[in-house]
C-alpha cells in the first residue's frame, strides 16, 4: 500500500503523535548528528544521509540496567529494572541502519531471548526513509542493501517532490498506525507512478554497483587467518572503540556491577550491560592469558566477525555499508581499502572467477 504525505502534514502528524508516543528523530548538536528523543518537531534536523551515530542505542543502549539488587543481612533481593514500555516512534532511519536490526535481532532474539531488547523492538514503530543521494562514505550496494530497501520498516518515506513524500506502508504495525492517522495522508495517484527523487550521485552510485564481492571476501578469509595484510593494515590502528561503537551492527558487550552504594551492613547496586569493543586490549584479556595480545589480531577479529564468523553462524554478513567507521577513524583506516585489497588478493589466489 502506498500513500502520499506532504511535508506540512508530516509535521502536523509528528506534532500530533508527540502527545501519545515517544518520538525519536535525527538531531544535530555540537556538530554531531544523532537520534534523540524530541519534544517538538522543530528539533528534527533532516539531513540527506545517516546521522553520525546509529540508532542502535535505542535497542541496545551504551549502558542498560539488567537488574538491581539489594543485600541486607545476607539476604539478596533482586529487582527487574524499570523497563521502557512506552510506545516509541523512530523517525528517519535509513535502509542500512534498518538492515542492521536484522543482525541485532539474530543475536538478541534467537537462542535465549533478550527480553530487554525484544521489548524495545516490540514497542517501537519504525518510520524509515529511503535515500535520494548516497552519503560520501556509504557502500550499502556493495553488501547487498539497496538505498530504497524497506526491510524492518513499518512505514517508509521516499522523496518524490520537494515537499512531498511517498509513503510505503510496509508492515501490519505500519498499517495500524496509518489507519489511525489516515487523515494526514493523501491517496497516491495510480497513473502517475511517482518517481522518487534521485540525485546524479545516486544514479552513479547505483550504476557503479558493488566495490567488492562479499562471497569472495568470505572465501578468502576462510583461508587467510594468517596473512601479512593484518599487521600491515593494523599497524596504525590505535585501538580505540570508534569503529565499533559507531557501527550499527557491532553488539559486543561487557557486564559490570555499578552504582554500588554501601550503608551499614547492607548495600545495593545495579548490574549493567555496557558496550564493549573487540579493539580494546582488555576485551579478551584474562588474568593469566591473552589470546589476542596485539592490535592486528584485534583488527582481524573485527573483519573476521563481520565477513566470516557471522556468516558462518547466521548465513548473513554483519556489515551494512553505512560507512561510519570509514569517516570517523582517527587515523584514517578505511574498511573499503581493506576489503578491496582482500578482494584483489582473492582473485590472485584463485584466478579470475
Amino acid at each position, binding site marked *: 500500500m502506498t500513500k502520499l504525505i506532504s511535508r506540512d502534514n508530516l509535521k502536523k502528524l509528528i506534532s500530533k503523535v508527540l502527545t501519545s508516543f515517544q518520538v525519536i528523530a535525527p538531531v544535530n548538536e555540537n556538530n554531531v548528528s544523532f537520534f534523540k528523543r524530541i519534544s517538538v518537531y522543530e528539533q528534527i534536523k533532516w539531513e540527506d544521509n545517516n546521522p553520525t551515530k546509529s540508532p542502535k542505542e535505542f535497542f541496545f543502549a551504551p549502558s542498560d540496567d539488567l537488574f538491581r539488587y539489594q543485600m541486607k543481612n545476607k539476604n539478596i533481593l533482586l529487582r527487574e529494572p524499570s523497563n521502557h514500555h512506552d510506545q516509541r516512534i523512530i523517525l528517519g532511519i535509513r535502509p542500512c541502519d534498518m538492515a542492521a536490526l536484522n543482525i541485532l535481532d539474530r543475536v538478541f532474539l534467537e537462542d535465549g531471548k533478550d527480553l530487554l531488547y525484544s521489548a524495545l523492538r516490540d514497542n517501537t514503530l519504525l518510520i524509515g526513509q529511503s535515500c535520494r543521494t548516497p552519503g560520501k562514505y556509504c557502500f550499502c550496494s556493495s553488501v547487498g542493501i539497496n538505498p530504497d530497501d524497506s526491510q524492518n520498516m513499518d512505514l517508509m518515506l521516499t522523496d518524490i517532490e520537494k515537499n512531498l513524500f511517498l509513503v510505503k506502508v510496509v508492515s501490519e504495525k505500519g498499517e495500524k498506525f496509518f489507519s489511525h492517522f489516515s487523515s494526514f495522508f493523501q491517496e497516491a495517484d495510480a497513473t502517475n507512478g511517482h518517481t522518487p527523487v534521485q540525485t546524479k550521485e545516486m544514479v552513479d552510485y547505483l550504476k557503479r554497483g558493488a566495490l567488492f564481492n562479499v562471497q569472495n571476501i568470505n572465501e578468502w578469509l576462510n583461508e587467510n587467518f594468517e596473512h601479512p595484510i593484518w599487521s600491515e593494515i593494523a599497524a596504525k590502528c590505535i585501538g580505540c572503540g570508534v569503529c565499533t561503537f559507531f557501527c550499527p551492527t557491532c553488539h559486543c558487550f561487557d557486564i559490570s556491577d555499578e552504582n554500588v552504594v554501601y550503608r551499614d551492613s547492607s548495600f545495593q547496586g545495579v548490574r549493567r550491560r555496557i558496550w564493549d569493543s573487540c579493539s580494546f586490549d582488555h576485551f*579478551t584479556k584474562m588474568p593469566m592469558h591473552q589470546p589476542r595480545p596485539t592490535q592486528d589480531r584485534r583488527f582481524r577479529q573485527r573483519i573476521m566477525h563481520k565477513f566470516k564468523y557471522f556468516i558462518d553462524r547466521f548465513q548473513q554478513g554483519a556489515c551494512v555499508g553505512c560507512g561510519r567507521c570509514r569517516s570517523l577513524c582517527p587515523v584514517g583506516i578505511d574498511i573499503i581499502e581493506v576489503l578491496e585489497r582482500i578482494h584483489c588478493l582473492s582473485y590472485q589466489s584463485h584466478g579470475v572467477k
Partner: protein
Amino acid sequence: MENIYQPHIMIIDDITVETPDVKTFRLKFQDSKLESDFTFKAGQFGQYSLFGEGEATFCIASSPTRKGYIECTVKRAGKVTNAMHKLDVGDPIGFRGPYGNWFPIDQLKGKDLIFIGGGIGLAPLRSLIRNCLDLREDFGKITILYGSRSVADLVYKQELKEWENRGDINLIQTVDPGGEDSDWKGLTGFVPLVMRDIYLSSDNSVALTCGPPIMIKFVIQGLDSMGFSPTQIITTLEMKMKCGLGKCGRCNIGKYYVCKDGPVFTYAQIYELPNEF
C-alpha cells in the same frame, strides 16, 4: 519469560581450602523447586555472581550424579574471585547456568579413560571423573595423571588420597621440578614429559585433558605421537566470557563461541580452529 541475565540465588554450604589461593565452594539453591529441577552434565559451566562485584565463569566441578548441590573451584585472580575468597558459609552467591556443551559421556562408555590434568584444570575433569566413578562398571580402565606447580598447589588433596586408595584407578601424581617437598612420594616433572614415560595405550581409549594452555598444547602433541587419533583427544578451552549465552561476543575462537559450542572440544575440532586461544 525470564531475564536471561538474572542469576538464581545460591547459598554457600561448605568451603574447602584447596591451596593458598584456591578454594572449593559447595552451593545449594535457595529455592527448593529450582534445586530439584536443576540438572547439568559434566563439562558444563556457569556464571557465578558476587553482587556488588560482578560475575565470573567457572566450570561445575561436582558430579551430575550427586544432586542437590554444585561445587566450583576458584583460584583467586581478579576482582570477583578475590571477593569470593572472603565469603563464609551461609553467604549468598548468584548462579546462572548450566551453559555450554559437555563431555560426551555416553560415547565414553566401555572405553578406557585417561585423564590428564594440570593445576586447577583438574576441576572440569573432576566432575567427569566422579561421574564415571559413580557409574564405575560402565567404563574400562581409568588412568589419572595429575600435576601441579608444587605440592602445595595440588587441588582436591583429600580426593586424590581416596582415588589413590581405590584399586580401580591408576593415579599418577607429579609436581614441576623444584615443587616437591620432603614428604612427596609422587613423581617430579612437567606433565607432558611425565606422560611420555608412562605407557598410555590409544587402543579403545579416550584421553581427556585440561590445564594451562601451554600444558594442553604439549599434552596433545604427546598423545598425537602415541597414536591417539584427533577424535580420541578431548579437552576444554577457556576464553574470557561475560554472558555465557553467545551474545556478548568475546569468547569466540574462529566461528565457535566457547560458551555455546564449547567448552569441550575434541582435538579434531581444535585442529580446525584458528590459532587464537
